[in-house]
């Protein structure tokens, strides 16, 4: 039997019993649509989390003093083991790097803040105007530290939302003078409440100009240098450039550690990627169910068409021809179901995107391919048994059936 005839014969047989055919196609379609929609949701969640990460500064490169343990053995370190401190000059030098967008130095210490007899221990962060942009923070009131010479700085402070509540309650905080350690500062801004953030909690932070903080703690070292790369792609070059600049400034010694948020991001990416695969696997179970349905419906079809099979044999059909006719029918039904499910799944994903624009519910290509391929494979695999049964029917007894 020619391939074209086989396909036409299977098509006619399928359209000859519309209820059975539409039931099968629907079952397959639901299975494939489930794979498409569920992976769209899982992969959407992955992208959503990555996007949120970008919002808090995923292009961040952080420089900390001291060589991290993971750096391996460095002969230079073996000779002069005392690491140099990071300084404001180091931070300023990083602005020369081409892949670097912004730099914010960070000096940190604990101190006391007091106003009108109320006293509280706080974390004091000395930094510059760029900090608010690099950390993607926002203000509830007032303004942030003004741009200007990093070595000078007015006695001004920006406080976290929690500090404001505890020290001032319902009173106006802006413009008030507070004592931070042994300095008097004027409050110029209040940070918007963020809740527990990654790293330090900005709600309980007092931010002052870096020069003031260093004077307060009587030190000229930095706790960190926060560097924002130009783009996600620029993170790696920025890291390399930053390392090189610091190395040159530190007489050729690699005595700082440069980390990126990429590592954290990669972990999340992996975690949620695994989730997508797991969800795809669960959805594939519905395809197996559809496969079993294909088998049962095809078995019923073989029974119903026993007389026809006997006739085909009398007309000279070989076992292979009969088997192929039933397999072709199973494959066609599965393919039709897979295509319908593909369309349904994409429509559902599009609907979700329409309803929740922030949620990028897009099925990954591999999941769609795997879904359609699994539908075809299960359809064929579960079609084998009915096809074999049809091929092995005894023609005389089949013809006797009516």
């Amino acid at each position, binding site marked *: 039997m020619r391939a074209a005839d086989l396909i036409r014969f299977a098509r006619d047989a399928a359209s000859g019993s519309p209820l059975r055919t539409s039931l099968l196609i629907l079952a397959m379609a639901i299975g494939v649509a489930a794979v498409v929609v569920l992976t769209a949701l899982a992969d959407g969640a992955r992208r959503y989390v990555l996007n949120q990460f970008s919002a808090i500064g995923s292009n961040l490169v952080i420089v900390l003093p001291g060589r991290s343990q993971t750096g391996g053995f460095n002969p230079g370190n073996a000779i002069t083991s005392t690491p140099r401190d990071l300084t404001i000059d180091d931070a300023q030098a990083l602005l020369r790097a081409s892949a670097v967008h912004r730099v914010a130095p960070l000096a940190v210490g604990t101190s006391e803040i007091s106003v009108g007899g109320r006293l509280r221990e706080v974390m004091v962060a000395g930094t510059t105007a760029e900090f608010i942009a690099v950390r993607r923070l926002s203000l509830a009131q007032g303004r942030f530290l003004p741009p200007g010479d990093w070595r000078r700085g007015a006695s001004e402070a920006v406080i976290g939302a929690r500090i404001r509540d505890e020290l001032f309650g319902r009173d106006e905080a802006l413009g008030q003078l507070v004592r931070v350690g042994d300095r008097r500062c004027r409050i110029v801004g209040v940070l918007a409440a963020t809740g527990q953030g990654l790293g330090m909690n900005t709600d309980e932070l007092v931010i002052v100009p870096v020069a003031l903080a260093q004077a307060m703690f009587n030190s000229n070292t930095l706790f960190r240098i926060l560097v924002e790369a130009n783009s996600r792609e620029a993170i790696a070059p920025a890291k390399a450039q930053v390392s090189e600049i610091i190395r040159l400034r530190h007489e050729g010694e690699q005595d700082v550690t440069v980390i990126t948020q990429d590592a954290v991001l990669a972990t999340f990416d992996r975690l949620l990627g695994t989730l997508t695969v797991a969800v795809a696997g669960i959805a594939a179970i519905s395809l197996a169910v559809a496969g079993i349905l294909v088998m049962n419906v095809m078995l019923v079809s073989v029974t119903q068409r026993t007389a026809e099979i006997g006739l*085909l044999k*009398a007309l*000279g059909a070989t076992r292979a021809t009969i088997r192929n006719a039933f397999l072709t029918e199973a494959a066609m039904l599965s393919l039709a179901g897979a295509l319908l499910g593909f369309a349904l799944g994409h429509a559902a994903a599009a609907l979700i995107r329409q309803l929740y624009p922030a949620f990028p519910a897009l099925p990954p290509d591999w999941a769609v391919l795997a879904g359609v391929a699994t539908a075809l494979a299960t359809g064929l695999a579960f079609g084998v048994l009915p096809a074999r049964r049809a091929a092995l029917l005894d023609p005389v007894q089949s013809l006797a059936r009516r």
Partner: protein
Amino acid sequence: MSAPLIELSRIERVFHLGDSQVHALQSIDLCIAAGEYVAVMGPSGSGKSTLLNLLGLLDRPDSGSYRLAGRDVTTLSADEQARVRSERVGFVFQSFHLVPRLTAAENIALPMVLAGIAPAERGERVRQALRDYGLENRADHRPDQLSGGQRQRVAIARATIMQPALVLADEPTGNLDRTTGEEVMRLLEELNRGGVTLIVVTHDGALGARARRQLLMADGALQQDRPGSGGTPSEACALPT
């Protein structure tokens, strides 16, 4: 006269029904020459259909040998038998056995489709067959839109579309009224005059008498082998095998 087409010797066919056995065919010796017209008659359950199925290679004997056109066909594999059916045998059934979802033309073309013949040649042969059997206006009708006589004509067209040497008809007029049955018999006899070996199972003595040779069966055995009104049977098989 002509060479033997069918040679059966000591054919046995036993059906097992639970503990009991039914001897549907018992030591059948039979020789039919190419071009013969044979009627098989006998009471119900005497083994006529079983014999015909065996001749058409739809069934295998439990013992004995069957030579078709000089070749032993009992030992052939299922696929080889299917090939022989495709090329040499045409079946006509009492209940027509048309595929209900296919049109008359498609039903006629079915054996050629199964044999993998090219669509162009199929179309030509189907058109010719539709003309030969007066079905030109019914080509696109489905079986349920045809009368019984038309259905049987479609079935005969289908049985002969591969130009088989042997046509086997199991009570071809059983579901038809007398005049339509007569007409169907005339078509089959026409085939026989064209050289096709024709074997017809029938209950109708009058129809059976038209054959040149009548086989009378009883209880699975060949009881009588006598010439009909059509003339004496061929000599080719007179020699014992």
